[in-house]
């Protein structure tokens, strides 16, 4: 316990790093995944902008990257990280790897949630003379908003989980903190403090997600 109090500043700094990584990952990965999901949805056969070439490419890319465990992905993607961010380690490098991995996962989740929109309402919009892009923006996404919010909530929690591995490339965060000061120094109290805070983060995210989705669905 004393050790935990001693580590107070490091603990809060790590918590801040986790929040920072998750927030930026959701910003970049969230936006990228959204576009991926829209692309997957729109270009599928019978979709609003059917294009089998684009659809196949997107599917192959996602199916290739998604099953890679993040702890391997973060290392494997390092050359690309270095090319884009300039460095291969640190918080920003971790955010890049996290965003990439999150985007692939979010792409699938967005696609699946958009597919819940009944074809009939899309047909109705078409019958009113609306074009495909307008239908995507003003019918498909709004109609799927409730499930989309729940899907994103799920991903935020997955990203919190993945961010614990950022320490591998010097990204910091609560996972690294627990590893360094708790596990390696035989201080279970320190480990559990980090675990507890992560649990609190997850609970808050889930609560807010549920609340938003309920508001959108008005049920």
């Amino acid at each position, binding site marked *: 316990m004393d050790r935990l109090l001693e580590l107070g500043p490091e603990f809060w700094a790590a918590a801040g790093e986790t929040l920072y990584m998750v927030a930026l990952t959701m910003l970049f990965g969230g936006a990228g995944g959204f576009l991926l999901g829209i692309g997957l949805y729109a270009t599928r056969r019978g979709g609003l902008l059917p294009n089998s070439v684009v659809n196949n490419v997107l599917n192959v890319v996602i199916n290739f990257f998604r099953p890679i465990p993040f702890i391997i992905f973060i290392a494997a993607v390092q050359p690309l990280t270095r090319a884009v961010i300039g460095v291969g380690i640190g918080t920003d490098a971790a955010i890049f790897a996290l965003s990439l991995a999150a985007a692939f996962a979010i792409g699938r989740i967005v696609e699946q949630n958009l597919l819940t929109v*009944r074809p*009939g*309402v899309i*047909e*109705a*919009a*078409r*019958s*009113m*003379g*609306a*074009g495909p892009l*307008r239908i995507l923006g*003003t*019918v498909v996404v*709004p*109609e799927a*908003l409730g499930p989309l919010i729940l899907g994103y909530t799920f991903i935020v929690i997955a990203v919190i989980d993945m961010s614990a591995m950022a320490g591998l490339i010097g990204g910091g965060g609560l996972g690294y903190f627990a590893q360094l000061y708790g596990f390696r120094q035989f201080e279970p109290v320190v480990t559990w403090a980090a675990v507890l805070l992560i649990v609190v983060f997850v609970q808050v995210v889930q609560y807010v997600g549920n609340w938003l989705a309920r508001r*959108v669905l*008005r049920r």
Partner: protein
Amino acid sequence: MALVTLEHVSKSYPAAGRAAEAVVAVDDVSLEIEAGDVYGIIGYSGAGKSTLVRLVNALEPATSGSIRIDGQEITSLRERELRGIRLGIGMIFQQFELFEAKTVRANVAYPLKVAGWSKADIRARVDELLAFVGLSDKAGARPDQLSGGQKQRVGIARALATRPRILLADEATSALDPETTQEVLALLKRVNEEQGVTIIVITHEMDVIQSIATKVAVMDRGRVIEHGDVFDVFSAPRHPSSQRFVGTVVKGVPSPAELAVLRERHEGRIVTCSFRDGDASQARVFLDLAEAGLEFELVYGGINDIRGRAFGHLTLAVRGDDTAIDRALAAVAQHADVTEVR
């Protein structure tokens, strides 16, 4: 010139699997729909009715044939040009297909936004439409707060928003109970009579045709097997499939089971006389039989009224000398269709 003209229109869907055959959903259909018509299209499920109307507003491209809306050939238009055509054709659906995430007002406003109306014009037009369908107090409601009949009224308001000349109704009342069906049909009738909108009504329910259609086409396996004035098709359906449909709503035609009972219960020969338009021919039937000195009784029958024109079927048991009966029936056949059923 007809408002909607179909000439030798076919639509086939490619085979789903290697072993499967292509589905010919619409097969060489030619129809003319005049401005002001309420044109019914009836047929069993899978007959190709939905596909046919979806060709009219080009939600699907035709495989072959010509489709003209107000003289304009639409089969050669590009997608972007078709969007303009669709603004002039409203459509309502069996499952209503309202935007659940939008209010009633936003649903009705949607096609106006697509058409590029100004905010103020949209507001005024939506108010007018909601008043027309009797839902002014529901403007702020969400579709999931409405009953089925109310949803379809929103669907109608939305479909009419841009003042289309044509309204397509695909099984628009099939998800509604009988009472609500009548309400919605009455509303469609007003749309046709007060606003002059030409309506194409698709249904598998003959009473929908009977309530509002002026013309009807019967579809079977992708083909139009019979079409014409509702009165003509109802009073003298030629094709067996049309006869089955007509039989579900027309009064006075005994079913095979009922015929069996009649045969058992009554002696003599049993004939059905079908006549149309007015009571004179009905009176002649009785007169001819009486003049021949035959004993007869009315065992089954009914008179139908379609837009003020009557037709009916009377089934009679006739007893007496066979040659006298033959002679009398020949006379009756001058002014009614006679079918001997025993």
